[in-house]
């Protein structure tokens, strides 16, 4: 609760900059329109105009807020015009993808830490896999999955998984290797099995890394779901809203979808942060 004032201050500052930028970015258009009508805008007129354009370069915060209000609160959540409906479609895919990505990332990290061959061979290819522009192969993934009869949530979730497993692998390899020599030596003297070493030593020591990675993976996963929505034919979801908004130059719609997406990601990340605090506290680590 101590953070209310600071957050408000920062948000206030952002809004001020935002309104200013809206005037600045939208002014050329306003001047153009005025010039075509053989008019010259006074400053108040200019400001009023730049904050109320139909398809502004940068919509003013209140325009986005109104759009958000209309589409979140103003529509039944089952309506295709409701942003909640689209947000849920995206969120469900990214949550599923996040879970799958976390599991996959975890499994790979395990393999890398425990299997010498995997350690030496897999990592470079995991890295290479991440340099493939997902937007380029997403359509192929969707097509292939469609061909084998998978459609709907799963293909999108696969793309989310593809983006989110990487931070988990990188973080967990480091985390699982973070116990120091003495802690490992103790396990050796007790002749702990690999399972025991893992659950009783490596896993607990990796917790700070795990949560940090999960936060990044969650954000990546949402991006993945949105990317995955583009080649499914812009049917529904925040990605489809972004796309449609962009084809028809509806910047206000783009921004409200963006804000919604960011809010989802921020909420999910905050949730993970909460888990982190609870778990680390229970472990006596914070």
């Amino acid at each position: 609760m101590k953070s209310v004032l600071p957050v408000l201050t920062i948000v206030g500052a952002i809004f001020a900059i935002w309104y200013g930028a809206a005037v600045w970015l939208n002014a050329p258009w306003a001047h153009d329109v005025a010039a075509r009508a053989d008019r010259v805008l006074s400053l108040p007129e200019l400001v009023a105009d730049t904050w109320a354009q139909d398809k502004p370069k940068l919509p003013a915060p209140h325009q986005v807020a109104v759009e958000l209000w209309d589409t979140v609160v103003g529509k039944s959540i089952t309506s295709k015009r409701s942003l909640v409906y689209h947000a849920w479609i995206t969120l469900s895919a990214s949550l599923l993808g996040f879970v799958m990505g976390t599991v996959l990332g975890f499994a790979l990290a395990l393999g890398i830490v425990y299997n010498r061959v995997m350690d030496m061979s897999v990592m470079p290819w995991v890295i290479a896999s991440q340099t493939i522009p997902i937007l380029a192969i997403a359509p192929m993934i969707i097509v292939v999955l469609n061909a084998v009869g998978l459609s709907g949530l799963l293909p999108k979730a696969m793309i989310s998984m593809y983006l989110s497993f990487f931070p988990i692998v990188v973080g967990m390899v480091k985390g699982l290797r973070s116990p120091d020599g003495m802690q490992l030596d103790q396990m050796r003297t007790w002749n702990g099995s690999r399972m025991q070493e893992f659950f009783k030593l490596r896993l607990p020591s990796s917790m700070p890394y795990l949560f940090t990675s999960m936060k990044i993976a969650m954000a990546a996963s949402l991006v993945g779901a949105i990317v995955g929505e583009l080649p499914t034919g812009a049917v529904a979801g925040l990605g489809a809203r972004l796309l449609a908004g962009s084809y028809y130059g509806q910047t206000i719609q783009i921004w409200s979808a963006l804000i919604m997406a960011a809010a989802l990601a921020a909420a999910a990340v905050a949730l993970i942060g909460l888990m982190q605090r609870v778990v680390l506290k229970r472990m006596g680590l914070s």
Partner: protein
Amino acid sequence: ADDLSLQLKWVTQAQFAGYYVAAEKGFYEEEDLNVTIKPGGPDIAPVQVLLGGGADVMVDWLPSALAAREKGAPIVNIAQPFAKSGLMLTCLKEHGITSPADFPGHTLGTWFFGNEIPLFSWMGKLGYATDGSEGGVTIQKINFNVDPLLQKQVECATTMTYNEYWQVIDAGLTPDDLVVFKYEDEGISTLEDGLYTTEEKLADPAEVDKLVRFVRASMKGWKYAEAHPDEAAEIVLENDSTGAQTEEHQKRMMGEIAKLTEGSDGALDEAAFQRSAEITMEGGMITAMPEGAFTHDITDKALN
């Protein structure tokens, strides 16, 4: 009923009204078909979906279909509901462009989806370099919207008569502020929105029968849409699952689309095909004149 799925080339809009109307009005049902319409987008290559087995028929433009065919995709045009091209170049008058002679020194924005080909061959005919050098033009890749034109990042931009042009108008410009060059008028038009399927399907009589019924019902849908543009636009809106389309825009679009489908009964005009193929070749997208890229088989049967 027989299942059949159709992959569109673009998002749900009045450009595809005929199919939605046929579905909504029960024309497909009458033909004992159960048709699934899959919207497209910039990241969907319908050919891939078709070959991957995700669809039975696709909507595509001829240049890109011919290119795919040359790359080894055995696809064939089975019907051509669009008789005319809706592609044009729209310029802001304030930049002082009134005729093609004024192009040099300006930046022309185009989509790179195969759409750049006619533009390149046009510039070739006009004798302009396209690399931005002295006396030539600069070609800029733009996305599927008109922002670059409005924000003056380009001076002319590719638009469709039925879509982007009206977005420019909606943005507050009047037709007087604009200069348009229709590809139809400049002699560089290529065939748009045809229906394509694979050679494999055409070899199977049962599939052919399905396709015949599909084309017949689709053309019926198109003619209905032409006759009842407002109703067709409403149907499109209902089928738009993004909830992003507006009624005003779709109605206007339907009106423009009707002008393009007008006069086509679905049968491909071989002369238009020939011209389109030549332009495609001039643009360098294909290296040889295609063979077997279309069939009248389906439309012949459908129209009887």
